């Protein structure tokens, strides 16, 4: 069940993604309107993070394309922000909180320029929004899980983008941080920013998101939460019935078959 947005800021068209020839996402096709908080929801191994990484150009798709604001990613990269999973980096890395947030400015700086006072003021501002300005000089190894996530979000804010992709920002954070994050997301959406969040808690998904992408290797449903996030659709995404798809995927990997005919 797909409900398309009228004037989409994100268009994912027939996207198939494979890991060493084994398709993990099949023919994903959906659109998002601007100013919404969209949740990408589905069981473990459904390909939620893979979808985000493919949209961000970190994994090349086997077929299909992605358009942001009607353009390919390369042309609008400065308008796009990405928050990787918290566990994807080594938090023993010797940098301070402010350093990490300043990384959000690197995309706009070009090769040779270094962060100046304006960048620093901007980064402090973003930390302030996340309630982290007191920690600016702190080394990242000394942060709690929730604080780490806030730093990552502050870095995303520093990018001043129009569309944000966040990979599991609510995973392993305390209740206060979760509340702070969702408040921030709502403020951003009110300012007509679009936010796509990978999420695995069905309960809170209904409250948090006004658009839902329900995923399980394929797109089960995509559209406004009220219309598509029904028990029937959830049952489809989380129930079995996909045995065949997984078997065909295995077969393609084993026989080194191309995902699409060349």
């Amino acid at each position, binding site marked *: 069940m797909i409900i398309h947005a009228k004037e989409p800021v994100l268009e994912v068209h027939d996207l198939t993604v494979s890991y060493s020839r084994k398709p993990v996402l099949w023919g994903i096709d959906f659109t998002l309107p601007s100013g919404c908080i969209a949740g990408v929801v589905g069981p473990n191994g459904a390909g939620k993070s893979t979808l985000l990484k493919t949209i961000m150009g970190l994994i090349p798709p086997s077929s299909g394309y992605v358009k942001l604001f009607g353009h390919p990613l390369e042309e609008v990269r400065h308008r796009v922000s990405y928050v990787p999973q918290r566990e994807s980096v080594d938090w023993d890395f010797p940098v301070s909180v402010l350093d990490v947030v300043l*990384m959000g400015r690197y995309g706009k700086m070009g090769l040779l320029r270094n962060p100046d006072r304006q960048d620093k003021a901007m980064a402090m501002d973003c930390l302030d929004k996340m309630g982290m300005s007191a920690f600016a000089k702190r*080394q990242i190894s000394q942060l709690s899980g929730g604080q780490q996530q806030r730093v990552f979000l502050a870095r995303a804010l520093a990018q001043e983008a129009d569309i944000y992709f966040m990979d599991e920002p609510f995973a392993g954070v305390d209740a206060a941080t979760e509340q702070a994050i969702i408040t921030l997301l709502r403020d951003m959406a009110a300012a007509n920013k679009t936010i796509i969040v990978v999420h695995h808690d069905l309960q809170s998904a209904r409250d948090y998101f006004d658009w839902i992408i329900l995923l399980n290797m394929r797109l089960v449903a995509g559209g406004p939460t009220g219309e598509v996030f029904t028990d029937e659709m959830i049952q489809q995404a989380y129930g079995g019935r996909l045995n065949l798809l997984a078997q065909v995927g295995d077969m393609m990997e084993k026989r080194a078959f191309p995902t699409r005919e060349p």
Partner: protein
Amino acid sequence: MIAFWIILTGFLVASACGLLGCFLVLRKMSMVGDAISHAILPGIVIAFLWSGSREPVSMFIGASTTGLVATLLIEFFHHKARLQSDAAIGVVFTFMFAIGIILISIFAGQVDVDQDCVLYGEIAYTPIDLWILDSGIIMGPRPVYIVGTVLILIILFILLGYKQLKLTSFDPAFASAVGISTAVWHYLLMAAVSITTVSSFESVGAILVIAFLIGPPATAYLLTDDLKQMLKITVILGLFVSLTGYGLAYWLNASIAGCMATMTGVCFAVAFARHRWASSRYRARLV
């Protein structure tokens, strides 16, 4: 004066290796330095056969070519044949070192190179290898100039690419998302490591190159939480190790390279003990 030149060479090599080593250690790629420093042996032998002497330019070309071949082979087998990366490193560098030894055996009479010199280096002979201008002016030991130039290049590289090196080491996914190519910076770093290894091995040997690449950065990493501090401490440690290492060698009348490597170990042990002590005190305070 001899002591001065040796310590200076040691310090220059330690700084060049250490500055790059910081990024290798943080990227969990320390063993690449080990691999490159061993894999260049066949290149050196071939360069020697080519030029008939230890002429630096051809040595440099030979060694950097084989260093490059080694890195490319490692990447090739890792990606194309899906060989696990530690095994790819192990298979490739031992193979190239073996080829080097065989070449030495074949051309035993013609090549004044042996595996001792690759492993141990000859830092003690550094002051003898003088650079003399056509006009007859003695400029000082040649290795000092070579390693000094490399150090300046490395410092420039890190100054210009600091931001990118930091980000691609810390969070490669985010780096590519903001349009900084992780592959480009990976290869630039590898090239820098190859050049440094190649230009330093002759004076200090493969073992000391590895010690300098990993020892001071790992020690500095335990002492600070800040990348810039880590780079500075690494350089200071390089100076300290060269000084005390030479002192130790003079006192024991033993291998200079060996003593410098030993001193990196001592420094690390002290930092490690301090780190353990500090964290146990921290835990005690929590209780």
